[in-house]
């Protein structure tokens, strides 16, 4: 066959097998990739207003701890995820609501009255009462629930953003 422009029988088989095999492979391979990454492409939980406590119970200078859970359907199961934070009343009408998730690697910080700071048990980080980094590896201050409101009954609610 050398010197001839015609496709040899062998080459024809090779090319055809390659094309057909490639098509079948792509038809199964591409959906397989989608199948694997599917959960990563889904929406998370829903947005909601979450009540965290009575405004009158929050004393100036004493962080008021709160926690709540959000239930979400993951695959074939309902999973409850816990969230928490501290409401810090700075003055009579000024409220700062901190997320207790450490900005370093997501451990939960706790208020220590003794130290006068939020301490993270994982990597020895501490934050001031206003959430500023005092010590340790966190790259930024504690996150703040910016949107919050006071209901007519005197309950503080925060706006929780779903993923």
């Amino acid at each position, binding site marked *: 066959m050398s010197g001839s422009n015609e496709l040899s029988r062998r080459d024809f088989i090779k090319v055809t097998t390659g094309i057909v095999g490639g098509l079948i492979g792509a038809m*199964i391979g591409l*959906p*397989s990739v*989608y*199948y*694997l990454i*599917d959960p990563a492409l889904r929406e998370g939980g829903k947005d909601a207003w979450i009540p965290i406590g009575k405004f009158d119970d929050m004393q100036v200078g004493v962080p008021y701890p709160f926690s709540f859970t959000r239930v979400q359907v993951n*695959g*074939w*199961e309902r999973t409850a995820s816990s969230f928490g934070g501290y409401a810090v009343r700075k003055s009579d009408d000024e409220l700062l609501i901190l997320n207790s998730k450490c900005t370093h690697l997501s451990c939960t910080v706790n208020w220590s009255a003794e130290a006068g700071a939020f301490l993270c048990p994982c990597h020895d980080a501490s934050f001031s009462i206003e959430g500023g980094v005092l010590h340790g590896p966190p790259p930024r201050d504690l996150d703040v629930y910016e949107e919050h409101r006071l209901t007519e009954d005197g309950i503080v609610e925060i706006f929780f953003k779903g993923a």
Partner: protein
Amino acid sequence: MWKTVYAWLDERIGFDSLYTNLLDRPEPKTTWWNTLGSASMFLFILQGLTGIFLTVYYTPSPDHAYDSITYIMEGVAFGWLIRGIHHWGATLMVLVVFIHMLRVFFTASFKFPRELTWLIGIGLFLATLGMGFTGYLLPWNQKAYWATTVGTQIAGTVPFLGEFILKALRGGPELSALTLQRFFAAHIWIIPAVLAALMGLHLYLVIKHGESHFPTKED
């Protein structure tokens, strides 16, 4: 550049001789019936791949097995495709392996020097049936549950050892979470390992002896 890389690798790995020995080896005049072994191997690989993908979502627990499969079929993108291929591929594999065995039998290819290839092939056939039997339970639906109840009960009729075999298969006197878990382990680890090892030996012998001629009238 690519040629230098190839030559360097070929010197150390020997692609060329591998290719000649595996894919370009001399063959007698053959027909489509001679392709069933390769087809079986292809199906094994396909079942392996789709099976690995299924374990990403499947849970071998009585609480969640059925729900997780429902989720694969209705929740995950293309889950129906992956499971569909695995489901139908299983039936096809038993069929192809069986026809392959019939072909070898009717062309008398099991005779000297290929007796061991034949015996290993029987092991492969039984292992394939074992894959079918253990995989059947995993959806944990009514059909799976009762098929396994009956299947293990049949194994229990063996004289003297029957009760022990039944308990060993079920992980206890009745079907339970242990049954599902051990069938799962057998389905994804134990039997596939046996299959892969036997397939290696089978292929080695096939390549060593080459394919047999179809018998002629004088034979």
